């Protein structure tokens, strides 16, 4: 029973990681850009819920409205970032890390100036506040928080939507082409600059959705993005770039691993053990779980 409930905890940690890492994997995979401001796009999504609830009274309706609005808000911020800063730095991918960290600092301070430094509260719809009892036997019962179930479902939906977009749409085809070979894509007439910007829009928008989902389970504050971004980047590194499935598998695997180790030791020791596990894993697969095979030397 305990194992099952820890498994569920792990899956829900993994779902949050997945929602965040999907966008990162997209931008990192295509442009090699490390966007440290991704966490602040999550924050923007979360504050979208907070602002919307000032005008929409029903918690359920505001959440439903916030999902697309959060996507657009964070996506627009991403496009702006790409247009103003990142596109000048495509030749120096490591430097984007520092520049976007600066952007992240400023966005956090902006949030502090607008909304105040303390965390703010949002209301969760009644449907998502209780627990769902999956089964109960004599030895005990397994009940799952419905907010966590919602996030799990949302993450799965996001993956399916993204996978379908990449596989079926014209934009998806172009994105895959650019990821596989930027130069060949360019000489085939694909406007790689525009594709980059659209990818950034989608990736950042996914962060916005993650932010909306996070309002159900955690506090909303200016620093909420920083805490989780390091783990999300680890997911991208271990998952490998260019393939969605690596990110999906690794997000859930890391979530479950973290939850299981946490259960047998402490949170802080679990962090270190998970890090060691990742370094060990990279000995086996230094490029991550899945990679697009090429003939390049690396």
């Amino acid at each position: 029973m305990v194992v099952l409930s820890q498994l569920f905890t792990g899956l829900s940690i993994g779902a949050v990681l997945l929602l965040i890492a999907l966008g990162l994997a997209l931008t990192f995979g295509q442009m090699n850009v490390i966007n440290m401001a991704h966490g602040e796009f999550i924050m923007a999504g979360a504050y979208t819920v907070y602002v919307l609830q000032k005008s929409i009274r029903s918690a359920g309706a505001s959440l439903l409205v916030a999902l697309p609005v959060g996507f657009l808000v964070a996506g627009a911020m991403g496009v702006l970032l790409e247009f103003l800063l990142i596109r000048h730095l495509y030749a120096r991918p490591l430097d984007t890390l520092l520049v976007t960290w600066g952007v992240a600092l400023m966005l956090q301070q902006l949030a502090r100036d607008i909304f105040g430094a303390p965390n703010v509260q949002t209301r969760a719809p009644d449907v998502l506040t209780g627990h769902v009892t999956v089964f109960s036997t004599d030895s005990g019962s397994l009940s799952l928080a419905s907010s966590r179930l919602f996030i799990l479902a949302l993450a799965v939906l996001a993956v399916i939507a993204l996978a379908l977009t990449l596989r079926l749409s014209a934009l998806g085809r172009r994105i895959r082409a650019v990821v596989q070979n930027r130069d060949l894509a360019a000489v085939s007439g694909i406007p790689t600059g525009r594709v980059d910007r659209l990818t950034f829009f989608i990736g950042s928008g996914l962060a916005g959705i993650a932010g909306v989902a996070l309002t159900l389970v955690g506090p909303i504050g200016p620093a909420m993005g920083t805490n989780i971004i390091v783990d999300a980047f680890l997911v991208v590194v271990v998952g490998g770039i260019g393939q969605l499935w690596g990110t999906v598998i690794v997000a859930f695997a890391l979530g479950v691993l973290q939850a299981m180790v946490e259960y047998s030791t402490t949170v802080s020791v679990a962090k270190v053990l998970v890090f060691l596990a990742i370094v060990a894993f990279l000995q086996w697969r230094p490029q991550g779980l899945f990679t697009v095979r090429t003939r390049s030397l690396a």
Partner: protein
Amino acid sequence: MTTTTTGPDAATRDSGEPDPATGKGEPARRFGAGSPLRAGAGFVLAAVLLFAVAPLVLSTFRLDLLAKYLCLAVVGIGIGLAWGRGGLLTLGQGVFFGLGGYAMAMHLKLAEAGPGNLPDFMALYGQVEGLPLWWRPFANPFFALAATVLLPMLVAFALGSLVFRRRVRGAYFAILSQALCAAMAILLVGQQGTTGGTNGLTDIHSFFGYDLDDPVNQRMVYFIIAAFLLLMMALARQLMQSRYGELLVAVRDSEERTRLLGYDPAKAKLFVYVTAAGMAGLAGALFVPAVGIISPALIGVVPSIEFVIGVAVGGRATLLGPALGVVAVAWAKTALSERYPAAWTYFEGLLFIIPVLLLPGGLASVVGVIRRRRAAGDSRQDSTRAAKERTLNVGVGSATVRETP
């Protein structure tokens, strides 16, 4: 792995023109890296400034602050070597700074408590029965002093040899180093009973028998720190001028080519990473008597990346740039953040953006950039043409050489 972007090395590999970011391709007349005579004169000047002028001009309070900044500058020298010369963007120098700092602080706490007694915070939290086993060796001053430098180097060696051997690099390495930093800070906070938790190890008042509250002894600590700074500077210069230094730059700029020429890039990177870790550990050990505290907040993800930005502002690939940049950024932080905390955060954000975006070589490259501009002709037309040519080179480079990660 796809060749999705051309990478920084591809951009200038075959262009034969100096790269503003790294100073590559420039003849050896960089800031501080000229003839031995000029370098010697520079060191004498720096020594006079640090040992004679600063103590005379600055008040005790300012001198204490300077001592703290100089410790951070030692970390900066290491980052300058690893990142500026070796291309290893290490976002986790706080780990090594912390290992050195904690090793020193543990010994000082034990010495203060006296043999057989627990350090004050352990008695206060009451989570331990006796002194934990891993604290015990630090009672020995020689062990503790050796550990401040060797422990960080050992950790760097372990991580580096695993990671570089398997050719994990670039952004992957940066993220791993940052994750290590986050894990270490969380671990220290979590183990409150034996590490002091969030507060860290505080109230350190004596340094090998000398009372640190006495201004005279504080000045002595300052002199020790200044001496180590100059020593590390000399070491960094030796490394940069050596054949190894050239190999390191070659690895940074074209790792695959270096490998195919018969060198082992993993070894070159490992050496510079371990060196940088040792410098950070030394800096942490010096930081403790200068400031009297070491805590997770000083070594986590945020302070670690602040080291890097100081290095970027100063000029990552130069000798003096990293140290001066770190000191300047730390000084600006003290000066601005207390009076205008909000404005400081915006300013710090801009510090990350503007120099990296517009002046990749840092402040140390200003002279070179202006000189090049003048040499290329002042008209705007010329500069745009030069930019176009550079783009062309990027295209050619990326189409012919396929080796970026």
